[in-house]
């Protein structure tokens, strides 16, 4: 390969001659090999493995504070159960409360609906923030902490939804991760994971799962 016999071309015009006239041009392949090794070395040194990511989770110190619910005016209770299903109800648990069914795709609409004021405010804020920053990296670094603080305070407003997440004994770990992820996506700052079930909830669950 270091020398290429191009005699075939120059000899093609002459028919009948068994031996083509050997031309003196031969291609030096050194630069090609050099480039090959260079590219190889470059890619070996610059590829990075994709690392597994983490989710920061801070559990409230005392998850039994569901008594706070009665003082909150916008609450959703999400009961995570078997087969990736969610049973939810709005506001306090009363005799006439209707348990509704959802899955991990449809629950987003439900939460976003309840959290509409907060979401709108956050979107407004984000638009303003992006306008102010205008692609300037320095400004971004400067204004980002303030932006984050303002988003947190919006999430903490009284009208922003408060979600109580109750995984039952059939719920899987990934169900909980998915729901906490939804909290993040839907801009919910107030949520608590609890394992205390009310009598009515247990009754409903028993009937619901019993019929499956």
């Amino acid at each position: 390969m270091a020398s290429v016999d191009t005699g075939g071309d120059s000899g093609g015009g002459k028919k009948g001659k068994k031996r083509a006239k050997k031309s003196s041009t031969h291609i030096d392949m050194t630069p090609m090999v050099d480039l090959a090794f260079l590219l190889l070395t470059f890619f070996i040194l610059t590829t990075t493995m994709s690392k597994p990511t983490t989710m920061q989770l801070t559990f409230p110190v005392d998850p039994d504070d569901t008594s706070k619910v009665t003082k909150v005016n916008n609450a959703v209770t999400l009961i995570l159960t078997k087969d990736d299903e969610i049973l939810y109800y709005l506001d306090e648990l009363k005799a006439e409360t209707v348990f509704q069914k959802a899955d991990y795709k449809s629950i987003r609409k439900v939460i976003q609906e309840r959290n509409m004021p907060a979401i709108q405010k956050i979107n407004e804020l984000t638009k303003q923030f992006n306008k102010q920053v205008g692609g300037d990296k320095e400004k971004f670094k400067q204004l980002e902490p303030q932006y984050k603080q303002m988003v947190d305070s919006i999430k903490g407003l009284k009208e922003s939804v408060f979600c109580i997440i109750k995984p039952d004994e059939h719920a899987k770990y990934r169900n909980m991760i998915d729901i906490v992820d939804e909290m993040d996506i839907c801009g919910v700052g107030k949520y608590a994971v609890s394992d205390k079930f009310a009598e009515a909830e247990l009754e409903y669950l028993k009937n619901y799962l019993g019929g499956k």
Partner: protein
Amino acid sequence: MPKSSPALDMTPMVDLAFLLVTFFMLTAQFKPEEVPVDTPSSQSTMEVPKDDILFITIDTAGRVTWDFKQGKTKQLGVRDAVLASMSTKYNVTFTEEQKEKFTKLSGIAVPIENLAGFLDQQGGDQRKAYAEKYKGVPYDSLNNQLKEWLVATRVEYYAVANAQPTVVLKADGNVDYSVVNDVIKIFQTDEVGINRFKMVTDLEKSGL
């Protein structure tokens, strides 16, 4: 400029070079994880920290593994100190060889009574088989070894670094939430006192 024909034909050398590179690219494998875990996915893009983390793993069968990844504190021997502390607490002794192995190994997935046997196993596969027999670090209320490991790690790390270690929980997506909840409850006890921790997830493709 007419190029003179090379005295030595390099073709075979180049061919061999490419052949070897291709061979090693296709046959190199990553070091298999001691405990295979299929983590759930999330939108979070925060990366797993690398140094000085207290790493608790829960696999599909609900077995708990304790690990402390030494980074900057390697020379300060946090793992050795934790082993010494646990060894006094449970009255189990280890040979020098076993102690050395402990420092180099990553996850411990056996009760402390079987730890010596675990450390004596020769390879990753044997260790996995051994761990499967003993069902991970026990954490039931009568024999809460997990709690002792956690307390010992926190105490020893604090002694050298004057700070709390980062705590990371890696659990398989299909584990019952109640198992994870039990471990989290142990984190939240007063003696252990871990209320902030990170959970390892795969990066979810955006726009689902």
